[in-house]
């Protein structure tokens, strides 16, 4: 992926499909440390110069009963020597730490793919827990695939024996043994992992040494064991990328950094009010460590207090920010209306997850679009921006800050569980390339007297910090007279204020970039229109279909509300419009409503991202219908 990491030229876009990319899925029990293993493998892969995309897929329960299928935690990584934009449709390699992990994940493995299983965990008890009547490693049911079964548990115990750990602690090193083997398979360096283990276990050097021993043993196993058959070393070359300094970044990190950058570009201290909720909490965690950037974080008593404290801070002259996921966003709804009514800047980050209600806390979905655009009482227009990838989230967060401050309005930034957790390479941005948008506070009454609801050319009202002499005034959620801000619910004034709030937000369209065609050109047979984290699969699907000569184009939209000014004209330049979404068709409905175009839906709400093949199939169906 990595929009930031690649130059996508027309030639590039019609290049052959990735010559060498590999999808590996690590799967085990929740307690097996699969997310950690995957994260470290990702780091090592990024350092090898591959492009990559990851997909952490874990249960909502912290420690589901051991050995059960619903306790399986998996981490998928797709890495390659060309552009990688999705975590991959089907794994080439599945590493299964127990029978349940095999059972849950094997169906998605490519035909002929490789299974590496820890046979030490395939005892009758674990087989029964996973619902196997016979041992799949030996009963021939895995004949479609290549199977390597090693007793990873025993090999790990042997490797860490010198350190005198208890059996339970020793077995915890299994994931490092497995990681060592995976690193060997793909010719990855162990050095960054060893450095990380030393730092992580600085206070318990024996654990550091034991884990390193397990890592080395796994690596050595691959190198020295006389392995026949499938287990052989792959080398995946580095991917071509725009020159520069790179790092990996998750969406949650990128948003946190983008918010800090946004506040700095506005020359404002930031106040972040949050309440723990999956998958949004990581933003609170990141920001709480950045106090030297004039960031105050406040873990509030609930979601409502989180947004209200941020509104209070904005009122007092800081950049108020709050963050949550769908259920928490619902609780914040009334307070968003207050920020709209009092016309105060505010950034609301929504890391979407499966819904409704508690829904699927750890799974991804895009089903809060209506909630973002329409989900408040009254006519309550609010700008909405959607990030398409972890790296893109950085720029989107800055853009959200800019709009909030320049237009004195709350802004919602949409991401989702996939973006928040997934990692990708990110070309470190040159911060001098960003234009500052310093916040302006009214310090004294203008000529003609001070009016708290006077408006500038953008229809924004002045921002006045309490503490400023001579500009004392009162604001509130009750309807205010334009100009004076006195309570006024006369019919004409409410009409005027409703129109002004609407015009102010819709006017933002003149201050955002026109919509570009992400891949392809304006005009043609089919446009595939997406928003948010469907970017990767849509892009790859369109690219593959274009290579087959189909007149198909990809348009990916960042500014969900207001929509870019040219979007209607652009959409009408195609015969057909397909809108893939991880919901039941929300953005499709918005497009139909706004432009009276025949946008057609492609919907998926399984908690899993789209596969490239699913979108390709939908594109083919559209062409069959033409």
């Amino acid at each position: 992926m990595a929009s930031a990491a690649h130059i996508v030229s027309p030639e590039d876009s019609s290049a052959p499909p990735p010559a060498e990319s590999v999808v590996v899925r690590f799967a085990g029990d929740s307690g097996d440390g699969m997310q950690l293993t995957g994260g470290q493998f990702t780091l090592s892969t990024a350092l090898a110069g591959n492009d990559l995309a990851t997909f952490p897929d874990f249960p909502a329960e912290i420690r589901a009963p051991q050995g059960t299928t619903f306790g399986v935690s998996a981490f998928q990584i797709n890495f390659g020597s060309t552009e990688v934009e999705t975590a991959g449709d089907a794994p080439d390699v599945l590493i299964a730490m127990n029978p349940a992990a095999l059972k849950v994940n094997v169906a998605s493995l490519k035909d002929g793919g490789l299974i590496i299983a820890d046979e030490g965990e395939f005892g009758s008890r674990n087989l029964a827990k996973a619902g196997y009547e016979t041992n799949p490693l030996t009963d021939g049911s895995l004949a479609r695939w290549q199977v390597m079964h090693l007793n990873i548990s025993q090999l790990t115990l042997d490797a860490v024996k010198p350190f005198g750990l208890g059996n339970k602690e020793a077995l915890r090193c299994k994931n490092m043994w497995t990681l060592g083997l995976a690193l060997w398979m793909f010719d990855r360096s162990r050095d960054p992992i060893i450095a990380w283990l030393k730092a992580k276990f600085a206070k318990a050097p024996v654990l550091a040494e034991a884990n390193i021993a397990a890592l080395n043993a796994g690596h050595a196993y691959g190198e020295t064991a006389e392995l026949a058959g499938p287990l052989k070393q792959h080398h995946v070359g580095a991917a071509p990328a725009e020159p520069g300094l790179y790092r990996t970044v998750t969406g949650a990190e990128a948003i946190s950094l983008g918010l800090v950058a946004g506040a700095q570009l506005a020359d404002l201290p930031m106040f972040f009010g949050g309440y723990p909720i999956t998958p949004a909490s990581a933003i609170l965690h990141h920001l709480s460590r950045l106090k030297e950037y004039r960031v105050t974080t406040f873990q509030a008593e609930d979601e409502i207090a989180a947004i209200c404290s941020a509104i209070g801070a904005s009122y007092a002259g800081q950049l108020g920010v709050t963050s949550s996921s769908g259920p928490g966003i619902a609780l914040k709804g009334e307070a968003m209306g207050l920020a709209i009514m009092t016309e105060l800047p505010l950034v609301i980050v929504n890391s979407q997850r499966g819904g409704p209600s508690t829904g699927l806390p750890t799974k991804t979905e895009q089903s809060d679009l209506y909630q973002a655009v329409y989900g408040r009482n009254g006519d309550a227009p609010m700008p909405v921006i959607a990030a398409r990838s972890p790296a893109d989230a950085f720029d989107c967060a800055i853009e959200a800050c800019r709009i909030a401050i320049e237009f004195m309005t709350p802004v919602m930034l949409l991401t989702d569980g996939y973006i928040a957790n997934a990692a990708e390479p990110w070309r470190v941005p040159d911060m001098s390339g960003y234009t500052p948008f310093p916040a302006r506070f009214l310090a004294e009454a203008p000529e003609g007297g001070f009016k708290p609801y006077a408006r500038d050319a953008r229809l924004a009202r002045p921002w006045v910090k309490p503490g400023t002499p001579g500009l004392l005034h009162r604001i509130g959620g009750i309807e205010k007279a334009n100009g004076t801000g006195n309570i006024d619910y006369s019919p004409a004034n409410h009409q005027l204020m409703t129109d002004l709030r609407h015009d102010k937000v819709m006017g933002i369209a003149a201050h955002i970039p026109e919509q570009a065609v992400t891949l392809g050109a304006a005009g043609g047979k089919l446009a595939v229109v997406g928003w948010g984290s469907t970017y990767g699969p849509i892009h790859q699907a369109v690219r593959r279909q274009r290579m087959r000569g189909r007149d198909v184009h990809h348009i990916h939209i960042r500014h969900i509300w207001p929509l870019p000014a040219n979007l209607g004209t652009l959409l009408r330049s195609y015969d057909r419009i397909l809108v893939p979404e991880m919901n039941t068709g929300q953005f499709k409905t918005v497009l139909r409503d706004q432009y009276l175009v025949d946008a057609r839906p492609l919907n998926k709400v399984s908690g899993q991202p789209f596969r490239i093949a699913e979108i390709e199939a939908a594109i083919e169906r559209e062409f069959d219908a033409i």
Partner: protein
Amino acid sequence: MNDMTPVAKTSIKDWETDQEVRWCPGCGDYAILKAVQRTMPELGVRPENVVFVSGIGCSSRFPYYMETYGFHTIHGRAPAIATGVKLANPALDVWIITGDGDALSIGGNHTMHLLRRNLDCQILLFNNEIYGLTKGQYSPTSRVGTRSPSTPYGSVDRPASACSFALGSGARFVARGIDVHKKLPDVLKAAHAHKGASFVEIFQNCIVYNDEVFSAFTEKAKAAVNQIWLEDGEPMLFANGSMGLALNRQELRLEVVAVEDGDWEAAGVIRHDQTNKGIAQMLIDMEVERGFPVALGVIYNHPRPTFERAVAEQNRAAAENKTPDLQKLVAKGQTWMVDKQPHEI
């Protein structure tokens, strides 16, 4: 505000806005507004450094009538908004205006957490034991049997005690006043002088929906016998000194005792110690129906460090010796260089 800067004297007029006050004629809120406006010039603060934050309800229109900064927010959320204001600018003098429904029902959670955190602010809870703005439904402080549009046969649930709730939430300053009582400004001054969350319950008469609900102790004829105004360090006397409160040390409860010829010590009357939380709870629990006077004035005042100071101090300490450098921040962690020429595959 900077304590070192001398503050120019203000008068009551400096604290009045040009807005028409829109409470019902005879509402207790008028008296409270006047008491607050009369108190402000005596606090040594500038109007521009004062912020009144309110929720929703009759009381919450209050900020529109104060010539200060003001924020009329949403139902129950004033404490949360005030927390953001104070954390963003600890120099501001923050007052929260709320009611029994606003602070104890829809906003009970925020009230509790603001008090336990000890944010430096004044909370004035106008308790009229009724929902006024929504036309007279019973409230969380209404007595059992209150007949209202939503409880035509009388309410059956037990009321919350505002001050007991505050004390239980960890409030370090709990006081009571009466809307029309001349001592209300003294209570407000004490609340302002306390650094931390100062909780003041003001008995406020709703002339339309709950008239005379407090008459058992506010009526002129009964005031002396049924009100006790507490003064720190002074004997707890009422009824013009003819009665007092003694501590029954066997049963650990307060008792009303008669005082002969002013000899309160002989009667066993104890002095008010405003830092004694146990006695504060007993004072709060006193009811006229059980033969006690209602405790008024400063019931509990035992300061400890405030929330916004702790936050500011931690922010400062965590930032110490660190130079913010955005470019370095975005490049943090393990990085790698991609050469000028793309790799050949």
